[in-house]
């Protein structure tokens, strides 16, 4: 018996009742978003450092940002992401990996990623050249001063969105395989606390 007519014949007809069934709401659920296609500009190249700008946007602002990213410049006909990538490469800063949005429940976090090869620097306090963590910022600043290029205009737009967000953060990621981690961490001049931990296996006790 699989139809209601047969079931009613054997069990009788109840008072008709049709009502909504509350469905499960998953708190870890996210929007089902499909990627359209892969980016068309060149990849990050040999840049062992990633610079990341992170901030949050409402869905409406997210739609506006997406429109900005895919709309070609009326003068050049080039989409902003391609222009930014070309600008970063032309100025020897690195490359533009893309503007990403987190996929899942927190579908409001925007991340802009750049590849970068930090410059080396020497100073009075170090006898050997070291990577300059601020070189990316200085080079980006130089690029932004060139207000007549599409890359600088488009990059300034992204940076303005980042600056206006109260949740903005900025991160540098170094490629682990490209760091002589043991030497760096066991060098007392570079990092006295980790050097002590690595050489003795015990944490440095600090007397108060």
């Amino acid at each position: 018996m699989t139809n209601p007519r047969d079931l009613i014949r054997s069990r009788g007809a109840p008072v008709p009742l049709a009502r909504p069934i509350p469905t499960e709401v998953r708190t870890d659920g996210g929007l089902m978003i499909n990627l359209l296609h892969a980016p068309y500009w060149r990849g990050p190249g040999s840049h062992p450092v990633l610079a990341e700008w992170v901030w949050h946007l409402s869905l409406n602002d997210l739609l506006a940002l997406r429109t900005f990213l895919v709309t070609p410049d009326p003068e050049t006909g080039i989409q902003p992401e391609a222009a930014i990538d070309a600008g970063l490469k032309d100025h020897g800063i690195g490359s533009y990996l893309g503007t990403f949005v987190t996929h899942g429940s927190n579908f409001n976090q925007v991340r802009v990623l750049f590849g970068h090869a930090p410059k080396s620097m020497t100073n009075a306090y170090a006898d050997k050249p070291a990577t300059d963590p601020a070189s990316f910022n200085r080079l980006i600043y130089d690029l932004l001063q060139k207000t007549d290029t599409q890359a600088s205009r488009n990059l300034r737009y992204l940076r303005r969105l980042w600056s206006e967000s109260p949740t903005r953060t900025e991160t540098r990621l170094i490629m682990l395989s490209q760091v002589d981690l043991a030497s760096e961490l066991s060098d007392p001049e570079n990092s006295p606390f980790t050097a002590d931990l690595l050489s003795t296996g015990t944490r440095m006790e600090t007397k108060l």
Partner: protein
Amino acid sequence: MPITWSLKPGVRLRPIPEQECCLAYVPRPPALHGLNLSSWLVLTLCDGREQREIGRDYFDAVGPSGGPGATPGAFDSALIQLEALGLIERRAIEATRKETA
């Protein structure tokens, strides 16, 4: 004016005879509804025919077995509920003729 009743486009049914009920899914806006045997029967009878014919079929089916679903107002009550949930739609016969003309 006579009216006909039919299942709304996109509504999907999942009979669960072992539970003596049927689930109905409405895609827009997405919602899931549970129907007992009498409402399920009315829904299956809504195939574009006139309300009078559907009602006759309904009472033919429930009459012999009896129960509260066989009382005179039960059929109308079922139609009201199903329409309110967006599972069926009504159409005036005259309007239908004009559309097809």
